[in-house]
């Protein structure tokens, strides 16, 4: 289906990543945002607050991130596409509702403009240190989706993808920006609405008497309804059966949790978005994501210019982790280098995927700025020796 033109600001713009992310959400059909101010993410909601009155929807600034992260879920059951926006400290407060979104299968987008941590850390400076938090931060087993844009243009383009994936899989989707991507101003081209593919919510075709909220019809993702349409649904954060009713048995728990994980794990091939350059003949492969990929590109280009067989695999979808693709690259690559703006998070996933078939080297950075290209280049030279 094509985007609703009322939310699409067609044209060529010179805007930062935060503003572009907001435009991406509007183009994707997001019509309800609840949020709480936090640097360096605030511009996303500021723009939404300015734009939404004439697009037709609601922005509400709530009392905290806890409220914001559940108000959006109420709005989903009221029929809207939704998003909330935050940075590390706010993300920490939202964790319980990540779990609620996972177990109730509530399609929603959480934007995290990452800054240095832990705690208040570096409010105005970048990091990529929330990668494991979004995967594991809420209690219990769940599988989120996460995307890592590296430019304002991608903040627009990938935001539409984030909303589409939320609808397709009914999971919380994390949009993992960072302070640099959020505050970097570049050209952003917004195409006409008829060139933007959006995935609409999959409403049930069943009548109320036949409908069961968590019946999956074989494809692992149940069809939805909204409150007010006569279905009289019950939605709970408790372990529930197909009717949505609480059921405290190990059998119900096993069936539910397995499906929540499998709807992502068994679709990992469809959720693969790794952008590769020169990996076909690479002895050394740099694996990067988000802003770090732009630094890595500079280092890889330099190394290639010097005749080194180095490749670059950029993870655009970071969760689910593309383990099968990394394992395939390990058939040829002898050394993987993993620069990231944290002290070594996603490198652990690379190590698991590679499983000893190649050397894996972490290039950590505690945040506050991006890597120097020379740092990555030096590691490439060392690995290529």
């Amino acid at each position, binding site marked *: 289906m094509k985007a609703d033109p009322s939310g699409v600001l067609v044209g060529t713009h010179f805007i930062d990543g935060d503003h572009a992310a907001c435009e991406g959400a509007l183009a994707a059909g997001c019509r309800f945002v*609840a949020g709480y101010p936090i640097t360096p993410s605030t511009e996303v909601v500021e723009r939404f607050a300015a734009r939404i009155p004439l697009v037709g929807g*609601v922005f509400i600034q709530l009392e905290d991130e806890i409220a914001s992260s559940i*108000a959006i879920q109420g709005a*989903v059951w*009221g029929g809207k596409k939704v998003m909330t926006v935050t940075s590390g400290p706010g993300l920490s407060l939202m964790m319980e509702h990540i779990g609620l979104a996972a177990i109730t299968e509530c399609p929603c987008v959480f934007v995290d403009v990452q800054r240095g941590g832990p705690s208040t850390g570096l409010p105005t400076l970048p990091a990529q240190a929330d990668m494991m938090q979004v995967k594991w931060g809420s209690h219990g087993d769940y599988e989120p989706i996460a995307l890592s844009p590296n430019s304002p243009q991608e903040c627009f383009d990938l935001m539409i993808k984030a909303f589409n994936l939320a609808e397709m899989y009914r999971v919380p989707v994390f949009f993992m920006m960072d302070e640099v991507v959020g505050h970097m101003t570049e050209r952003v081209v917004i195409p006409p609405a008829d060139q933007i593919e959006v995935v609409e919510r999959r409403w049930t075709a069943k009548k109320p008497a036949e409908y069961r909220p968590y019946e999956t019809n074989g494809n692992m993702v149940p069809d939805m309804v909204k409150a007010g*349409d006569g279905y009289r649904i019950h939605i*709970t*954060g*408790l372990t529930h059966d197909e009717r949505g009713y609480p059921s405290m048995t190990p059998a119900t728990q096993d069936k539910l949790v397995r499906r929540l994980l499998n709807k992502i794990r068994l679709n990992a091939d469809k959720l693969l978005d790794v952008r590769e350059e020169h990996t076909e003949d690479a002895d050394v492969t740099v694996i990067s994501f988000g802003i770090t990929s732009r630094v890595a590109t500079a280092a890889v280009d330099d190394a290639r210019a010097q005749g080194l067989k180095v490749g670059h695999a950029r993870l655009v979808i970071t969760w689910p982790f593309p383990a099968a693709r990394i394992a395939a690259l390990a058939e040829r690559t002898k050394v993987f280098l993993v620069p990231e703006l944290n002290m070594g998070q996603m490198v652990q996933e690379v190590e698991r995927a590679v499983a000893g078939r190649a050397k894996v080297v972490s290039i950590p950075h505690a945040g506050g700025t991006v890597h120097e290209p020379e740092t990555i280049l030096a590691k490439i030279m060392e690995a290529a020796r």
Partner: protein
Amino acid sequence: MSTEQAVLDGLEIDNPVMPYLRKDRIPHIWCPGCGIGTTVNCFARALGESGLDLDKVAVVSGIGCTGRVAGYMNLDSFHTTHGRPIPFATGLKLANPELKVVVYSGDGDLFAIGGNHFFHAARRNMDLMVVCINNHTYGMTGGQLAPTTPMGATQTTMPYGNFEQPFNLPFIADACGAVYVARWTVYHVKQITRAMKEGLSKRGFAFIEIISPCPTLYSRRNRLGDGVDMVKYYKEKSVIKNGANTKEVDLSFQGEITVGKFVDRERTTWLDGMNDHFSKVFGSKFKKYGVHHVED
């Protein structure tokens, strides 16, 4: 025949409340003598008398004994997280303004962990009816100190008697801007039903506190007898003072209970305020949100 099936079959009798309940979820989990079921009975009757289209009524609960109410109502119903039914209900209401959204939860849920949300939703005059079943304790977890536990009452986490000042809930609701504030006890079933009916027809943030017994924990631990003894206490010690100054309706351990409708006023709701304001700011370019527009 299982006991459960026997109970279900017994419900075939003409019970006026049954159409409002999810029959396939009965029997409920509440203890004998608990007052929550009584309030649900009142709620069902209020829904019936309200004339509302029940397909357009949603109920949202948090966590705890009262948090289970949502699961038993034959409405669109949401059992959310601890302390957060009000922000969930806020999102639901704003996403679909044609819904009448009721928050039904306990004192610990709404005023301890969820206190901040209550204050702000009342301040905004969010169009919600909030029913708080106040049993002075955390029932689901075994009888711990609540922000409503009267001074002197014993709880597992106040084993020598409570020395903390409890909240006066109607005063909070009033001070934060609620447009309707009432308190009743589960003895006052007619008045509860009427208050809920009024709350359902009110535009804006309506708050109803219902004092309710927890015979399993609060009454037993404080040697106050069973559920019937507590209702007798409510009957004897309740004083109806409609329009009372909410500052003066504090509760004390087994003391007098001031009940009645304390506040009933008009104030612009959040959504009406947004629509009015943006109409002024943007003129005809702005289409009122949540209002059906005739397509031209």
